[in-house]
């Protein structure tokens, strides 16, 4: 069991790398599947010293729901920010820093949350606190910073808690 663990430090990454290789080749064949799988074994094995922990992924249904929610939010937020840029003068914009206290503790989960915040236009995650217990977010237009904090916690962090912790 220990040997299997050392040979496959990140099983999910192995599957993901195989898929990425198949997409790169852009045509399915047994050759590319085997070569992709070989890469999927070698790369996680070589890089495992950089990533010693193994995050636990629970609740795959929630992962799909999370992806859909984020994609929907990206579209909506794009339109909102485009309107802000085109129709609101710089003087009317109220940019603000928002501090988001984190309940998440897994580094991988915090990374996903920070990336999500940056990808949804209108918010950029800038920094974490020195022990990783809060996240510094910059908002393009935040008349009510508390509402943005509550929305991020309720929409994204609550779902990530169910996936990772």
């Amino acid at each position: 069991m220990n040997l299997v663990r050392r040979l496959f430090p990140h099983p999910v990454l192995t599957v993901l790398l195989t898929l990425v290789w198949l997409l790169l080749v852009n045509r399915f064949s047994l050759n590319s599947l085997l070569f992709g799988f070989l890469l999927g074994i070698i790369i996680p094995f070589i890089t495992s010293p950089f990533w010693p922990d193994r995050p636990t992924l629970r609740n795959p249904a929630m992962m799909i729901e999370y992806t859909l929610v984020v994609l929907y939010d990206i579209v909506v937020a794009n339109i909102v920010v485009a309107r802000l840029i085109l129709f609101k003068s710089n003087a009317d914009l109220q940019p603000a820093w928002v501090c988001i206290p984190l309940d998440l503790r897994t580094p991988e989960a915090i990374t996903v949350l920070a990336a999500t915040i940056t990808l949804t236009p209108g918010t950029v995650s800038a920094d974490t606190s020195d022990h990783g217990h809060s996240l510094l977010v910059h908002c393009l237009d935040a008349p009510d910073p508390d509402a943005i904090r509550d929305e991020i916690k309720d929409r994204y962090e609550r779902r990530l808690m169910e996936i990772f912790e």
Partner: protein
Amino acid sequence: MTPVYEFLIAAFLVISGVFGFVGSYGLIKLDNPMSRLHAPTKATTLGVGGVLIASILHSLMSEGHLSLHELLITLFLFLTAPITANFIAKVHIHRHETPGSLPVVGEDQDWATLATEPTAKAE
């Protein structure tokens, strides 16, 4: 290829063009560095996403095979765009912000970028 699909592909191309343009315009129009950072996030999400969907539809409809190459571009963009934005934000914090100009940290002592000396790790 039926006209319906041509319209659909054209619509996706126009949408991505519009968002790419608004993103570039925002980069010029907004007046402080942190606000400017918000404009390009639009170009990388909907701007590029529209072109990629149009490309998938085009290869499916006119060449008759499913090409999913484009999903990889989305994947790599989604991996790299937040890191670039984070680097720029960190440089901004180093050069223009002080602990007093940022919000209160909450249960920890400092924002990591501004913490000058390493503190003991609290569990």
